[in-house]
């Protein structure tokens, strides 16, 4: 009987374990799959002729003749649209006052909608903002914009509760010169914009143009790399030295207990506190740089990951068999030499794992870099400028683009592209940790 209970309990425990793992996997998939699917949209998408014009105009990429030829054809296809608008503009003043009052705002909306969809009308002066020089560069968004012209989205407040209604604009303009525009937009949108499957791998390395409306996330990726590498450059030597001290040199006692609890407390401090501390200490007190800089951010991140580096290094050192150490000491090596030539190499796989995982953490942290390193617009930072220059960084700019940007909806693909890239970088770092560990462990065995 007792045997049976034990068995059932055992099974239940195993089942609980499986359930937990399954839940975790599901959750991970639920979070990651949409990010990757939507993030891929920044690299692979259906681009329009406006995209190809933009690439040629802003980056000098693409075949000039081919784009020019395509552009000429598209302009021919667009002619009826512009002709209808011009004809209606001439017709409008002659209409009866009541009809004019009714049509004018709707016409305004159509004309503005066309400018958003296809770019500024030919012959009109170019706008100052790059985002307005070109029409919709992505087919999906172009379709939405076309729908905004065809239908007016309003709310019906007459019933009980209010309802969103899409009122077609075409009937309003029936019989006027503007009428031909609507069937054109509905049926001929493809010939107006020429959608084509587009690969944009350089999204990863291109700088952004006009606040991320066009271009890629190159400076952000580079900034993230600088910050993560810089943090490791500072945290790793400090962390390993501290770990060696804790494991090999320090004597058990109140001092050691105190120091350990210091490290543990540091590990539990929220990251935004590190950010504010970095601003107050490194920038406003020590003046490591004239303002925000990669250096200040790396120092702050280093503090943040230091406890992780110390703890993982300590564990790796503690896992080195006593026999190694005793053997070295028996052969006459001093403690310093034992640590350097026997213990550290044997502990290396564990230490490296800790380092790479901390690097992933440093790459993904937002709060510590907001006040110390990150800016929303900035040029590429060259290696010689890291001491004084702030940088865009993936984590912060992702937040910035999702909340503070003036046109959050227009640049969804950039946001997802950034998120996917950041997650991929962190995943790649973790994978590297696993591989390095396996490799070094194998080498040490031989």
């Amino acid at each position, binding site marked *: 009987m007792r045997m049976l209970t034990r068995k059932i309990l055992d099974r239940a425990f195993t089942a609980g374990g499986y359930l937990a793992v399954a839940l975790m996997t599901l959750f991970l998939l639920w979070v990651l799959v949409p990010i990757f699917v939507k993030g891929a949209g920044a690299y692979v998408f259906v681009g329009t002729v406006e995209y190809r014009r933009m690439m040629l105009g802003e980056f000098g990429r693409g075949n000039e003749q081919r784009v020019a030829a395509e552009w000429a054809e598209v302009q021919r296809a667009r002619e009826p649209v512009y002709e209808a608008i011009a004809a209606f503009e001439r017709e409008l003043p002659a209409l009866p006052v009541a009809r004019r009052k009714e049509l004018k705002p709707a016409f305004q909306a159509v004309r503005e909608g066309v400018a958003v969809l296809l770019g500024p009308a030919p012959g009109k002066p170019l*706008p*100052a*903002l*790059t985002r*307005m020089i070109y029409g919709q560069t992505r087919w999906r968004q172009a379709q939405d914009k076309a729908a905004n012209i065809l239908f007016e*989205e309003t*709310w019906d*407040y007459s019933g009980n*509760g*209010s*309802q*969103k209604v899409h009122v077609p604009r075409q009937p309003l303009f029936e019989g006027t010169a503007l009428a031909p525009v609507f069937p054109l937009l509905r049926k001929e949108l493809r010939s107006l914009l020429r959608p084509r499957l587009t690969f944009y791998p350089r999204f990863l390395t291109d700088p952004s*143009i*006009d*606040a991320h409306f066009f271009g890629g996330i190159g400076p952000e990726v580079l900034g993230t790399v600088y910050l993560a590498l810089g943090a490791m450059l500072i945290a790793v030597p400090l962390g390993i030295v501290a770990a060696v001290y804790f494991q090999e040199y320090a004597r058990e006692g109140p001092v050691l207990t105190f120091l350990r609890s210091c490290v543990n407390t540091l590990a539990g401090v929220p990251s935004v506190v590190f950010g504010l501390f970095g601003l107050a200490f490194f*920038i*406003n007190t020590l003046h490591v740089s*004239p*303002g*925000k800089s990669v250096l200040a951010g790396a120092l702050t991140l280093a503090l943040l990951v230091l406890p992780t580096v110390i703890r993982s290094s300590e564990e790796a050192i503690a896992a080195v068999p006593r026999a190694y150490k005793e053997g070295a000491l028996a052969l006459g090596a001093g403690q310093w030499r034992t640590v350097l030539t026997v213990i550290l190499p044997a502990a290396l796989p564990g230490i490296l794992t800790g380092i790479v995982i901390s690097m992933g953490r440093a790459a993904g942290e937002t709060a510590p870099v*907001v*006040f110390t390193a*990150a*800016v*929303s*617009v*900035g*040029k590429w930072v060259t290696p010689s400028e890291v001491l*004084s*220059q*702030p940088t865009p960084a993936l984590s912060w700019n992702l937040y*910035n683009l*999702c*909340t*503070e*940007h*003036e*046109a*959050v*909806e227009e640049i969804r693909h950039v946001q997802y592209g950034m998120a996917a890239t950041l997650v991929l970088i962190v995943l790649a770092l973790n994978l590297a940790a696993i591989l390095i560990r396996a490799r070094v462990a194998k080498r040490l065995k031989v």
Partner: protein
Amino acid sequence: MRVSLFVAGLVAGCAVAQAQDKLVLDGSTTVGPIAKAFAESYMRQNPGVNITVSESGSGNGAKALLNGTCGIANLSRDLKGTERKAMEEKGVKPVAHVVAYDALPVIVHPSNRVKGLTIEQIRNIFTGAIRNWKEVGGEDRAIVVISRDTNSGTFETFKELVLGKEAKIVESAEYTGSNGGIRQRVQMTKGAIGYAGLGFVDRSVKSLEINGVAPSVETVLDKTYPISRELFMFTNGEPAPESLAGTFIGMSRSEKGREIIGEIGFVPVPPKQ
């Protein structure tokens, strides 16, 4: 203007001093889009120049100017007395430059049938005296008050122009860190009411008429819209007209700069005479 930009380009091109070709801007998330667009346009014309823009809020912008960690502080409000005093003590001489005008549209979810409110009603809503939309002609739905955080210049302006200095915002209010954030919150919440800069409000939310006036470029210019304000860039001392900071701020009165401001959705200041 073009000449001065050209001069700035020349100066930046052959600058020996590091400070001449670097400019750091920090502060308001409302002024952010203007500063970002100016920076990109400026760097395009002067490739040797490096301008960085952070958007950490007006309060932090003022602190950055105080600590000397930025060359230009973007503020969507004027400096407060306490800030001026702190700067005076540190020897920082703040100089205000108005770069654009802005209105604060009061925004609600588009499903809301309320078309407009009076300042009095808005004050009562934000201080908690009115808690249901049916009290102001809407349907029976609890009002969700959404405000900017207290570091924000937009918050300060709204408080000063609508609520009055002493008023306390209802304790059930939500606080959001940016203009974009407040718009998204309102867009997602049926009973919500909030406010944001003119350049941030799009068709996804409904701007209310206030005392019968809808917020727009025209109503800001003729001062009929009651919640309007100036957007500032502050420098430490008056920048030399041909310096990087001087020409950068000068853009706001140039033809191109005014066009940029208008296209983003704010109201440009009058051009330089």
